[in-house]
Each structure stands twice: as C-alpha cells, then as structure tokens.
C-alpha cells in the first residue's frame, strides 16, 4: 500500500534571484570592498605619496639629483653589488637547487632549512655576523689583514652580506620547477647522446628559465633594497661605501628630503619594472609552449 507523501512545492524554473543569492552577492561585494580598502590604505596610497613628493616639482630636481657625485656613486655601488650578488646566487643557487631536487642523502632536510634561514634572520644580525667574522677580533680578520685586504667597512663585506640575504630566492623558485619537471626529458636526452652538460644547457635550463629569471629578479630587487646589513658593515663612508639606500638615509638626515624621495622612487621603479617584466614574459611563455 502506498502512502501519500506531503509534496514540497517545487519552485518553477526561471524565477528571479532569491534572497540567499542576492545576499551572497552583497557579501562578496563587501569582502572585495574591504580587501580593496586594505590594499589602498596600506600600499597604493603610500606609493602615490612617494610619487607625489618625488615628482611634484618636475624634472628639475630629478636631473639635479642625478648630477650629484655622491648620488651617482651610490647608484653605481648598488648596481655593482647587485650584479655580483645575482651572478653568485644564480650559479651556486642552481647547484643547490639540483642537489635539493634530485639528490638523496642524509641531512638533506637540514640543507633545506639552511636555504630558508636568511629569510628569517634580521639583516642587522647579518651585518653583525660579518663584523664578527671579518672585523677586529674576528675569526678571519688576521688572514685578510695579513693579505692587505680590507673586508669590513669596504666593498667585500657589503657584497658578502648581500649575497647572504639573497641566497633563498633562486633556489626557492627553481626547486619546485625541477621537482615538477621530473627527469624524463633529461634521461631522454641522455639516451640520444647528450652529455650531462649539454642536457643541462639545452633541456633543463630552457625548461626552468622563467622560474629562474623570476628568482634572479627577486634576488636583484632584494639586493638593491638592502639597508640594515650594509649599514652595519659599511661604516657609511660617503662616496666610498655608501649604497643608494644608505644615501637615502643620509639625505633625509641632512634635510635633503626631495633628493631622498627621488632616489627612493628610482629604486622602487627599477625593482617594480624588473619584476613585472619577468612575470609578463613568464605568462606569455606559458601560453606559447602550452602546458603538458
């Protein structure tokens, strides 16, 4: 015997948006609003602020700033340190990335922790480490002063600390790529007669190139922005060991705010353009080669 069930009214198709749906939309709009507001207050507005203060008096102060010898030297020093840092962290970073992604041996996870350590350490502490190693009473000081090489309060220590803080970037970008790619293509190349070096140059590098470039760009941006560590090791000798960031500090200290803003803006613009450029190329490359 069948029972008569209470039939629930079924809404006909094509009904207008019901209350839960429009409420969902309103909630989403509010969420977006809050997120946008946060980003505006925290990031966009200050960026606008610095652009205003740097550019409001037109080109004049800009050319004036860049004609100052200490500004030029500071920028030169920053670029030099950045280039050395990028080269070192890229080459050695690739080695570490390969070992981390492909090799298996006890203590590998310790290696991984070392790679991430510079991200967590204060740059001031990094500078201190260099002073303790190479400064007066430091472990390596006798050796270098015997050779007549000045490390602290000179370029070498500034390069060393900048390398330290930039170590993670290339490695962190490349390792996941290598893991995802796997070894199939490389092994195929081996069976076709390519040596390990040839395989690395023709197969592996092209496959990781955008991640590698991105890591290099991050490394470069970090290097030109470094201030805490170089402050500690440089001794801030104007015109000799003053990077762009140290120049900015001094400029504001000596009431030359406008010059400070302009140099700051320059550094920011350089980094942003670098990173946007690489990211744009990466997207285009993904679209072209397709994803397998």
């Amino acid at each position: 015997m069948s029972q008569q069930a209470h039939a629930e009214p079924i809404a006909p198709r094509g009904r207008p948006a019901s209350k839960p749906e429009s409420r969902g939309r309103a909630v989403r709009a509010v969420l977006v609003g809050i997120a946008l507001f946060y980003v505006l207050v925290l990031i966009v507005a200050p960026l606008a602020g610095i652009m205003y203060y740097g550019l409001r008096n037109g080109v004049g102060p800009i050319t004036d700033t860049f004609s100052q010898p200490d500004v030029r030297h500071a920028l030169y020093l920053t670029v030099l340190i950045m280039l050395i840092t990028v080269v070192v962290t890229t080459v050695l970073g690739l080695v570490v990335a390969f070992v981390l992604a492909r090799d298996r041996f006890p203590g590998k996870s310790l290696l991984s922790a070392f790679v991430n350590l510079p991200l967590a350490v204060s740059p001031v502490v990094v500078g201190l480490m260099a002073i303790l190693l190479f400064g007066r009473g430091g472990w390596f000081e006798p050796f270098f002063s015997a050779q007549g090489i000045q490390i602290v309060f000179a370029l070498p220590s500034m390069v060393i600390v900048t390398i330290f803080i930039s170590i993670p970037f290339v490695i962190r970008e490349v390792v996941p790529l290598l893991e995802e790619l796997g070894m199939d293509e490389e092994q195929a190349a081996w069976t076709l007669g390519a040596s390990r070096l040839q395989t690395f140059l023709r197969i592996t590098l092209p496959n990781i190139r955008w991640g590698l470039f991105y890591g290099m760009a991050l490394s470069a941006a970090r290097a030109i922005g470094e201030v805490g560590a170089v402050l500690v090791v440089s001794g801030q000798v104007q015109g000799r060991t003053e990077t762009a960031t140290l120049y900015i500090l001094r400029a504001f200290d000596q009431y030359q705010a406008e010059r400070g803003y302009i140099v700051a803006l320059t550094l920011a613009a350089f980094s942003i353009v670098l990173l946007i450029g690489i990211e744009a190329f990466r997207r285009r490359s993904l679209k072209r080669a397709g994803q397998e």
Partner: protein
Amino acid sequence: MAIGVHNVSKRFGDFVALDDVSLAIPTGSLTVLLGPSGSGKSTLLRVIAGLEQPDSGEVAIAETDATALPPQKRGVGFVFQHYASFKRMTVRDNIAFGMKIQKRSKNEIRARVDELLELVQLQGLAGRYPSQLSGGQRQRMALARALAVQPKVLLLDEPFGALDARVRKELRAWLRRLHDEVHVTTVLVTHDQEEAMEVADRIAVVNQGRIEQYGKPRDLYEHPATEFVMTFVGPVTRFGEAYIRPHDLEVELQPSARYEEATVEKVVHLGFEVRVELALSEGERLEAQLTKREAERLELLEGQRVFVRPSRLTEVEEDAPGARVAS
C-alpha cells in the same frame, strides 16, 4: 646477440627489484618483457639502457660490455611511457635532437627528419609543438626521435600505457609493422598480456625480479614453465589440482569415460565465444569457453546437468622451451 644481461641484481632499499637475472636477446628480434606491476621489468629495461645502475652483474650491447658506460654511449634508443617530449621544441627539433648532438650537417638532418616523419606518418606536423599533438602522435614522434640516431637497440617502457584502448591497439599493430620494416632489435615492456602475444617474437615473463620463462609466445602459452606463466599468459580455470585453459574443457550432454559431472550455473554470450560457468559435484567452480556453434549444438541451459573433461592438460613443464635456466 644484440643484448646480453648477465646475473644482474638490483635493490631499492629493502625491495629486491632484480634477482640475479640473465637474458640473451637475439639481434633483430622483438622481445617483450611481460609482467605485473612491480615485477622488475621496467627496472631491467632501464638497467639495459644505463638509466639505472645494477648492484651486480653485467650488461652487454652488440657484444660489447656496456656496464660501465653511461646511457649516452650505449647506442640505445629509449621511448618513455609518458613520452618525455622536449616541450619547448617543435616536432622537427625533437626528432633532430640526437643528430644535432652528433653535429651532423644541416642537410643531412633535414633529410633524415623528413624521412622519419614519413615513416611515423607525422608529415605536416613538423612545425607543431608536443602540446599540440595527441598522445598517439607524441609517442610516434618519440619513436622517430629515438630511431633518428640509428640505435643498436630500441627500448620501449610501456609505450602505450598512457593511451586509450583504441589508440593502443592501433599503435601496437603499427609498431609490429614498423619493426618488420626497420629490423632494429627491440625490447618492449608491458603488463598487457594480449599486447605481448600480438607483437612479440619472444616473450620474457618477469615476476618478482626473476625471469620465469623466455620463449616464443606459442611456447609460453602451450608449454608454460611455471604456474605463474600459465596464469599470466592466458586464461585459466582450475580443474581439481591442475590449471587448464577454458577452451580445452570439453562439455557433453552424455556421460562418457573420464568425464565428470557438473551443473551449468550461467551461460554468457560474448559474441563469437560463449562462456559457461559450471560447478562440479563438490561445488568447485569451473569456466569453459565454447564456440557459438558448439554452444548451439548443446543447447545449454542454466541448471542443466552436463559432463566435462579436459581435452588436454597443459602441464607446467620445468624444462619447457625457454624455461629459465637455473644460474
């Protein structure tokens, strides 16, 4: 002998992948390494290629000891299950890769690539990227790429495993025809018994790191050396203590000498064949495979009483042709 494997062993930690394996593969043949997952067949193939290092034992390719040689120097062509196409290169550049490494002239490369494109039927696709090809096309490209450098042996690691069934069958037949044309010593790894039987000159059945039998497909089927080979290479049904092939089970309506009584449980019509599920008097289950004609003649129904006997007992023979030689 194109490939000689001598007493090769390999472990991964505690797991024994290859246990004192020896094999001699004749030049120009198409050998299939057949076995279930984890049997060691892929490992063996990779050891031959030099992509894995054995813990002990030697590998010889074309009569030369290759054990200490890296894969670059062994003259092997390798085709991977997931194609391993060079993603960032066109089909043409993929195929040309080995030749570019050998620094051949541009004209030579171009001519050979065109020749290979025609061989694998990918003409017109030379400018495409692997991501724009289907799985079957990518695998054909991989074959062309491997053949481009005229390898001494061609090794294929479950080459059709990532393709769907129809493409798999097509490529299987196509590979066989290709081999007949090109005659490169070929070794193919698969877990698909049908594929092995269809394609191979010889089959090596691999199980738990050992080769159980190496011989012609028909020999393996009719004279299996071990129970495993028998159950893996063809359908089996148990008759008492022994295994027999379902199509070797005769079914009659009248009792006769050496026939046993059985009841028909189910009759399944599979097109040309008819599968009859039977139960013996003690309740043991059997399967018989009859042709349509036979089944019609008998007019079998569920619940009917019939009499069965094996027309031949395929006995597992320790010294069957190709049975593993104790080392």
